[in-house]
């Protein structure tokens, strides 16, 4: 891959991101419900007070001015103040972001770490009991709604068996110095095994819940593409060369079978962002997803706007990363 084409591809992202921000802004503006009214709630207020509040939040300006103000501020990292918290949106989001990143990463690792080996085994042992169990499990994984599965896990592991905590990110009695803001890493850096295990215990159920549908789909994709690859001439030729079975399976088959898996993994990681809102709400996970859900209920435009923009940018970047991995795996394709 050449640096030039890479830079070109990055530049192509700019109009995409601009388009996204326009759509995000339009959607928010067109959503019914007046934040000022919601904010004041039952309080008795004069029209003057309302107008002052409106002016204060910048809601009295014409639409296009509001958009350009939003955009130019966004470029320097200023996403305005939250209507309710009266604090910069960027602060609020940055506070919540590490928890979400940690949850998503672990969910991803669980999904990929189980799905790919399971898919390979299911393909190699096609038609056997293992294959059937994996297939049935993946159907469950795709069809079980996260909110139901999450509650089920809480009931079993937390309420019934008392093995794992019900909710939250870490117990109240643990104090961990913040370095990376990812608790699993920070606890290790602090050399505190007990807090690491506590953080892991809190993380495991939400991560499994979040990762389940992704893992199920990845398993299917890996199995299918692996079956297809195993039928190719180059696998037979690799055997004719006298290579060992593991080398053929892992190096010759899996490298090619991963090509579709990577694309799907990137798309699915994007959808984890949506899953985050549900899972974080169920497990009381102090992440971005829950912040967004709260913001939606209170018409907290700046937060919703910023979060959706962040989701969209992440999604675009994930796809970009998938494209790059795709070309690395598949030399026939150029960026």
């Amino acid at each position, binding site marked *: 891959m050449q640096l030039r084409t890479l830079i070109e591809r990055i530049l192509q992202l700019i109009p995409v991101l601009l388009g996204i921000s326009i759509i995000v802004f339009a959607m928010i503006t067109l959503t019914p419900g007046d934040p000022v009214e919601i904010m004041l709630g039952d309080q008795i207020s004069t029209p003057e007070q309302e107008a002052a509040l409106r002016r204060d939040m910048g809601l009295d300006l014409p639409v296009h001015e509001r958009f350009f103000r939003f955009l130019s501020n966004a470029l320097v990292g200023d996403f305005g103040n939250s209507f309710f918290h009266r604090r910069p949106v960027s602060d609020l989001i940055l506070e919540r972001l590490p928890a979400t990143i940690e949850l998503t990463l672990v969910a991803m690792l669980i999904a990929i770490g189980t799905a790919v080996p399971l898919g390979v085994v299911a393909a190699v042992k096609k038609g056997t009991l293992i294959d059937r169990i994996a297939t049935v499990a993946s159907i469950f994984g795709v069809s079980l709604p996260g909110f139901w599965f999450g509650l089920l896990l809480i009931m079993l592991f937390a309420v019934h068996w008392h093995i794992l905590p019900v909710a939250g990110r870490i117990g109240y009695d643990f104090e961990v110095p913040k370095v990376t803001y990812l608790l699993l890493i920070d606890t290790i850096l602090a050399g505190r095994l007990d807090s690491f295990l506590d953080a892991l215990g809190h993380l495991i159920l939400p991560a499994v819940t979040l990762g389940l549908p992704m893992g199920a789909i990845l398993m299917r994709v890996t199995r299918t593409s692996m079956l297809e690859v195993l039928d190719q001439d180059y696998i037979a030729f690799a055997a004719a060369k006298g290579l060992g079975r593991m080398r053929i399976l892992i190096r010759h088959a899996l490298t090619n079978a991963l090509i579709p898996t990577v694309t799907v993994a990137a798309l699915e990681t994007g959808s984890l962002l949506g899953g985050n809102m549900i899972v974080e709400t169920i497990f009381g996970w102090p992440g971005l997803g829950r912040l967004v859900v709260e913001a939606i209920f209170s018409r907290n435009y700046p937060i919703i706007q910023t979060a959706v923009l962040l989701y969209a940018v992440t999604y675009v970047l994930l796809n970009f990363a998938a494209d790059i991995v795709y070309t690395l795996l598949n030399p*026939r394709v150029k960026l």
Partner: protein
Amino acid sequence: MTEAQMLKVRGLRTTFRTRHGAIKAVDGVDLDIGYGECLGVVGESGSGKSVAFASIMGLVRPPGRIEAGSIMFEDRELTTLDPREMQRLRGKEIAMTFQDALTALNPAFTVGNQIAETIITHDKSDGSKRDRIRRARARAVEMMTLVGIPDASRRVNDYPHQFSGGMRQRIMIAIALACRPKLLIADEPTTALDVTIQAQVLDLIAEIRATLGMSVVIITHDLGVVAEHCHRVLVMYAGQVVETGPTENVVAEPRHPYTSGLLRSIPRLNDRNARILPIKGTVPEPINLPDECRFRPRCPMSADGCRVPIAMRKIGHDREARCIFAGDEP
């Protein structure tokens, strides 16, 4: 034949068990390959020629299975050989090339990588891993030069899709020959190629056979290729050998009607009046074959005597044919 044979196959039977019944893809095949010999194996698609040699390589995939027979390679019986021994033998002593190099080469790795991989796999010498890799890479370039790829030291880092069809075929041959095998099985080496490239690839195989002193099997459906390059020919039909003998004799005077039919269906340039005569009908479904001459339904000479299983009949000291009209004694 009295001289020592490199490969001796007797009564080989490979069957695919399917829901619709057992497919006898290879049904009682005998064949011999001598040292330094080039054997041509001819037959239509479905005649069992590829499965026969996949069986010899130990590469028949389930539901296929070798049900009976013996495969002696030098002093080893391959049908009962330990799988790990068999793996060591594949690629090292018996190598194989496939019909279409584009699908047989792994698209994800450079050709140098794929040539070197074979060499490293079979390199049982001492020395550090790094040393062996370096040697294998050097040998990959050597092999590419040997098979006539220009600018090999640069192209060694290219991917299969960056080569032309003929060049890819050469690379596959380079991979097969990388460990100097005693026997090369070339499965349809020219079918996927343009006519001009076909000749080049066949000449290359002949040349390398002479230089390295190995034996070669060319599996093809083109008797013309065999006539030009092979010492002996083996004609297969519906899982059985129907005729075998020295190529020039078989081509000049075929003794099985199927061989005659194959010869008549080759286009000729030197005879304006010769018409291409296709063999009527198709190869029979290999499931539940009747106990009779398998070519009977398509045979212009069929008679009542053909309704029983036909054994191979000797013709002279070096020919055989599976036809009641062949043989020295009528």
